[in-house]
């Protein structure tokens, strides 16, 4: 294994675990304000609740590494392709500077993080898109990393779990962004042909090119409660049809009702559900 596996540092700072701004007192975070209900709760309560608002139940975005730490058995995973760096294939004006800012703010190299490890003792390859990095948009590096990790799962015959969160295409990478849809979908299809289990877990928001490629190709499709899931964004649709969209349109629950999601799984049941599915698909 050695050469492609990089052991990452998993001691993330407190500020990197969540996307929200936090209240600070003496440099120590004590309270976190909910984006939705605007009420403050103790950080300890948020944490116990997996960063779902202890008061109103609103899901906060969590970082890729924090998600990994919730999924894998404690200390039982290694990051894959950690040294892949964001690129600028179109020499797009000001893009490099924007990427640099995102890197600094999130501590990530790109919006996708891949890892292999054990979940309830079962080996699995996991990819998480981090919505804090350029809205988890599909860059050529995201596409390449996702493809490589799927190919890794195919080769090593491990189940594949992808947590999607994406605002869609990475505009600054133009046609290269679009072509990642074809590349990643082809990789999923090859993985399928090899008989592997692919669990696609949709989190807020999953839209655009990611929805129209690997995110909707799972054997099992799960979704986090209240996540926005769709291809076209609600604003574009409203502008096109000149009508207000119904309440809850494109939310996880709406998709479940329209037949595109197997099950809505709350964050606190995420790991257990995945373990159950891995066991149901265990090969003798």
């Amino acid at each position, binding site marked *: 294994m050695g050469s492609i596996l990089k052991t990452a540092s998993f001691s993330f700072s407190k500020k990197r675990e969540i996307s929200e701004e936090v209240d600070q007192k003496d440099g120590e975070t004590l309270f976190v304000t909910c984006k939705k209900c605007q009420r403050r709760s103790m950080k300890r309560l948020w944490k116990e609740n997996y960063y779902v608002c202890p008061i109103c139940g609103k899901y906060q975005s969590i970082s890729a590494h924090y998600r990994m730490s919730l999924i894998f058995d404690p200390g039982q995973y290694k990051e894959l392709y950690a040294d892949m760096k964001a690129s600028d294939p179109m020499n797009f004006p000001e893009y490099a500077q924007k990427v640099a800012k995102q890197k600094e703010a999130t501590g990530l190299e790109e919006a996708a993080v891949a890892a292999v490890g054990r979940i309830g003792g079962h080996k699995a390859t996991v990819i998480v898109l981090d919505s804090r990095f350029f809205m988890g948009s599909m860059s050529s590096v995201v596409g390449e990393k996702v493809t490589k990790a799927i190919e890794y799962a195919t080769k090593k015959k491990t189940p594949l779990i992808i947590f999607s969160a994406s605002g869609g295409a990475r505009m600054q990478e133009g046609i290269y962004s679009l072509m990642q849809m074809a*590349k990643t979908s082809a990789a999923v*299809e090859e993985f399928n042909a090899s008989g592997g289990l692919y669990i696609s877990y949709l989190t807020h928001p999953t839209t655009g090119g990611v*929805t129209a490629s690997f995110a*909707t*190709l799972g054997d099992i499709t799960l979704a986090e409660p209240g996540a926005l899931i769709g*291809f*076209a964004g609600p604003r574009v649709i409203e502008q096109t049809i000149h009508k207000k969209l119904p309440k809850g349109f494109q939310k996880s629950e709406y998709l479940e009702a329209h037949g595109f999601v197997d099950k809505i799984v709350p964050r606190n049941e995420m790991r257990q559900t995945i373990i159950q599915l891995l066991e149901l698909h265990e090969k003798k």
Partner: protein
Amino acid sequence: MIDKILEKVEELDAQIEEVEGRATEVTQDLVEVVEYSEEVMEDTFEERISLEEHDKEIIKLKSMREYFLSECQTLTPEDRVFLARHSQRPHVDDFIDGIFTDFFEQKGDHLYDEDQSIYGGIARFHGIPVTVLGHRKGHTMEDNMKYNFGMPCPEGYRKALRLMNQAEKFKRPIITFIDTPGAYPGMEAEEHGQGEAIATNLAKMSQFHVPVISVVTGEGNSGGALAIGVANRILMLENAVYSILSPEGFASILWKDANRKKEACEIMKLTAADLKEAKVCDEVIKEPLGGAQRNYDEVMRNLDAVLWKHLQELMKLSPNDVKSDRQMKYRKIG
């Protein structure tokens, strides 16, 4: 810019046609006079002078037209977007008429609906049975309403996949024509699983053992274009464009200002030449000066030759090599 030039050129087209019409009338008179006259030279003097004058006028008008058309030798990306969307540009039905024979149209996804924004079926290309399909745009507003301006709903992608799956089954090469503003951002399109429909096409197209050639003929935007465009070869008409989304959409997402379209065109690298450089497009097909709408026959001849060349090359490969050739094409991007 190009729209102003084309306006001039089309004005001249009309003038030339009018003078040529008059000249034809004079020629007919001349023939009659010659037939019944004893003193031909004398009796036809007037007509001959008139014809000479007409000829001179036509030459003058044509050289003016040449002058304006020569301005079309250097087009900006925005000009090409204009041409790519020109209502008189040849569309999928024109291409099927132009270079295929024996066309048998297949309708419907056989699941839920018939989406007229995708048009296709079985036909012969150089005598070989193929599956041919593409986004459908109309030349009139009425037709465009019917075809939803070439913007498919999930049913359209599923119809395309049904046709392509049959091609795989019966070992027919697949030829697709891409010309769409993008996927249709409608409520039902979302409820019927637009994302899933596109993703499934991408996944399944990557697996075909028959050659797939896609021709971008007009505008190829977003996943709506790619959903029928996972191909061994991507050909583009000279003035076609291919991009992540429309320049207007790009400008409004990136700068929150759809009016900055021109600027978007400049940096999006969406022309055939740009895409060739990015190794997404394999070959650019020459168009008549001033755009494909000016001479269908010439476009058909050029496209036919290039398409046939690429298909012959691909038909030499084994089915497995055809599949891996296609997968490698995308694997290498990014």
